[in-house]
């Protein structure tokens, strides 16, 4: 099993052409805009992966577009908002994920996750005002930190998002140490100091995801829970969740979302501040009437566009609800191709080989030693016979 997974990782790193050349641009075609849209072009040996990180219309949206190699994508702008996305030819594949709202729910039964029975309230992100924090857009890394403030007077708090694309395969620096590759972007979301409704005394927040892919609209995304033996990178958490677009489940070249069912209640992420994350079932829906997703997929064939949504909710029974820490942060990766599989670290392999090798060597040398001794004793050297 272990060898098997190693082999897969090894082969994949060849097959997918992990090393891509990335060229990130902020607001291409509207350099002076105060809004934020990052466009990253990642050229590989076979194809080009275009990524859009869009914060221009409130709801944070990540769009992946796979085209033939070096196909340019042009964006035209109207009033500091992206209007048209123009490709010279038909794209190979595209998928997207967007967080269009938060859902506050009153977890009366205190079981942590969101369900239909609990009273709920929407917090649409349409009017969230995003401020650009630190960012780094170079050939080595594309990183963007955004802080979103709600414009309504009643709703305070900050929605913090950090997107990071590093064009090589490695474990993320922070817990839960997800694996990022040249084909996938690491996303951290934090819900900081959100005011909860006064009439809810067991408030928790869930994130509402809209997922789009250029698959048959009657098809469905799949999610699976995989158990790994290795919790070295996420102490105590053995599960990995993966959401795959239909194409990804069929042929491993679609889109995926990968995350661990764990989130953190303190900015300093540690095992003691960790709590559970849950995913709900998918439901079929349609593109929102306005917004970047609608603009982007306008030219696509409607029958060939799958749109589904789901919630990610956070909490554990008896953890004191959201108000206990007024903080929840969670991470996922979104990417193209085969979701990365973790492998045993060198340390583990070294311990096992030393641990097994030394006793065996010792036993072998011991046996020889004893045999030699026995032989000597059976044929005692002449000095003894002399003595007698």
């Amino acid at each position, binding site marked *: *099993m*272990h060898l098997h997974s190693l082999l897969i990782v090894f082969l994949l790193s060849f097959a997918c052409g992990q090393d891509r050349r990335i060229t990130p641009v902020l607001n291409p075609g509207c350099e002076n805009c105060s809004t934020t849209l990052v466009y990253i072009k990642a050229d590989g040996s076979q194809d080009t992966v275009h990524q859009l990180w869009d914060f221009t219309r409130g709801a944070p949206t990540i769009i992946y577009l796979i085209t033939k190699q070096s196909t340019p994508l042009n964006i035209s702008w109207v009033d500091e908002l992206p209007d048209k996305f123009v490709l010279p030819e038909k794209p190979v594949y595209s998928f997207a994920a967007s967080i269009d709202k938060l859902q506050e729910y009153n977890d009366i039964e205190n079981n942590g996750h969101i369900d239909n029975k609990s009273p709920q309230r929407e917090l649409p992100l349409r009017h969230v005002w995003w401020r650009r924090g630190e960012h780094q857009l170079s050939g080595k890394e594309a990183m963007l930190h955004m802080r979103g403030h709600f414009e309504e007077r009643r709703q305070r708090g900050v929605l913090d998002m950090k997107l990071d694309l590093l064009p090589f395969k490695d474990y993320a620096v922070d817990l839960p140490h997800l694996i990022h590759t040249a084909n996938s972007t690491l996303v951290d979301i934090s819900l900081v100091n959100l005011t909860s409704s006064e009439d809810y005394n067991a408030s928790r927040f869930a994130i509402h995801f809209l997922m789009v892919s250029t698959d048959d609209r009657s098809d469905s995304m799949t999610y699976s829970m995989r*158990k790994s*033996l*290795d*919790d*070295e*990178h*996420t*102490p*105590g*958490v*053995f599960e990995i969740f993966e959401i795959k677009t239909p194409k990804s489940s069929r042929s491993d070249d679609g889109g995926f979302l990968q995350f661990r069912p764990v989130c953190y209640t303190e900015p300093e992420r*540690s*095992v*003691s501040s960790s709590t559970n994350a849950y995913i709900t079932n998918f439901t079929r829906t349609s593109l929102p009437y306005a917004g970047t997703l609608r603009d982007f997929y306008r030219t696509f064939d409607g029958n060939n566009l799958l749109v589904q949504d789901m919630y990610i909710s956070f909490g554990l029974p*008896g953890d004191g609800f959201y108000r206990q820490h007024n903080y929840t942060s969670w991470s996922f990766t979104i990417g193209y191709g085969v979701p990365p599989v973790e492998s045993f670290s060198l*340390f*583990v392999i070294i*311990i*096992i080989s*030393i*641990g*097994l090798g*030394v*006793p065996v060597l*010792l*036993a072998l040398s*011991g046996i020889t*030693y*004893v045999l030699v*001794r026995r032989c000597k004793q059976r044929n005692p050297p002449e*000095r*003894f016979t*002399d*003595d007698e």
Partner: protein
Amino acid sequence: MEAPESSGSSRSNMVQPTSWCHPAHRVHRFFALLLMCFLCFGSYFCYDTPGALADNFKNDAHLNTSQFALLYSIYSWPNVVLCFIGGYLVDRYFGVRLGTVIYMTIVFIGAVIFAFGVYINAFWLMILGRFVFGIGGESLQVVVNNYVVLWFKGKELNMVFGLQLSFSRFGSTVNFWVMEPVYRWVATYYGGYERLGVTLFLASLTCFVSLICGVILGWMDYRAEKILGRQDEQSNSEPFHLTDIRHFKSVFWLLSVICVAYYLAIFPFIALGKLFFERKFDFLPQQANNVNSMVYLLSAALSPFFGILIDKTGRNMTWVIISIVTTIGAHFMLAFTFFSPYVGVVTLGISYSLLASGLWPLVALIVPENQLGTAYGICQAVQNMGLATVIIFAGMIVDKYGYLMLEMFFLGCLFVSLIAAVLIYIIDSANNGVLNMSPSMREAVTTINKETDETANLLDHEDYTDQEETDSRRPSESLDQSINTRDVAQEQSDRIRSRYLAQILPSSNVSERQ
């Protein structure tokens, strides 16, 4: 019925040995055995309360893994030294009876302080409680061993030791079964950390029961001493000299390496195991407790039988190596597969009991009898030292690197003990040692060498290896020397043995007289 017997030695001497009230009678001794078993029950029961209520400690008292692990290591810390001192104090000052009551009282007080600390949710008080509990706990074990030797030497000693081990494990097992339901019951009346505190108060009652057993046993022993006239021999006993340690040979130190390294892969695993089963195998808390208690349960059930098995077959080192290898297999299975943890844990439990039955008697084969106490003390002390440091360390590994790394650490420890075991095997067979002989072979050796040779042989084997490399005249000289030392050792050993015989087997004398 009992009052007149205890009133005066002259009268109690008149009790017929055939009566079950007579200390030499089988029924009487087994009643004492029962009390001895219950003497340890309390301390073992309370030792593992944090383990059985791990989740609740984390949720109610808000302890992180490292803090939680500290509850265990603070128990072990004092005993790095106190095993020695505790035993020594009993030998020199307290005597077995008073010692038992004193240590048992300390254990009880410790358990109560700990419960109170949880009740008011003061971490320092919890730590203090566990510390006090630890001071009494391990020394209590030493005294109870003294009791067992005093009452059963030359009779059912091996079986009784096995049974003692079983009963201690039984205490832990019962604890893992009972605490969760008790906690739930208490939770209907109390909330927060108070319910945890009250649960622990209830648990500390077992220590009180043990204390009562200690007092009754003390009285029985006092009576037995009067009836059997043990007192004279006891005053003759000479205290051990710490300088004797210098004469222990390398095989003994390798054996202590196994004592430390092997047990590191068992006890810390049980302490942290519950959450491991919950996280990795999605077990419910009660299920996880059941799996976790399997190790103790199996060792409780199997120890006496493995004791008999090894008594019959001998070849201790082979058994020890086999059990280390199967333990490695068990940890491998837990670390690298998703097979039901029952498979791994049952294997672990079986190997653990096999090792315990094979390993501890080895000390007696290596070390002369008059140093046995010190030798066992050293084993126990280094083991405690290992456990104390490692349980903290293990908690940090889990928090920082996860359970796989923890398993890797356990495997590392097992590899170390495997290496030590293989080394002992090699050294022993290179010297035609007794460690790996079958009982008949051992008997042959002992009849030829008048018994003490086997220990002397092992103790002096390093000299032998030197001898063979030297020239032809030296061997005869050193042979004489070693014969001298053997004579001395034999003399000493014989004296001690007769002392023990006089001390422990008056009952057999009585029956012969009869």
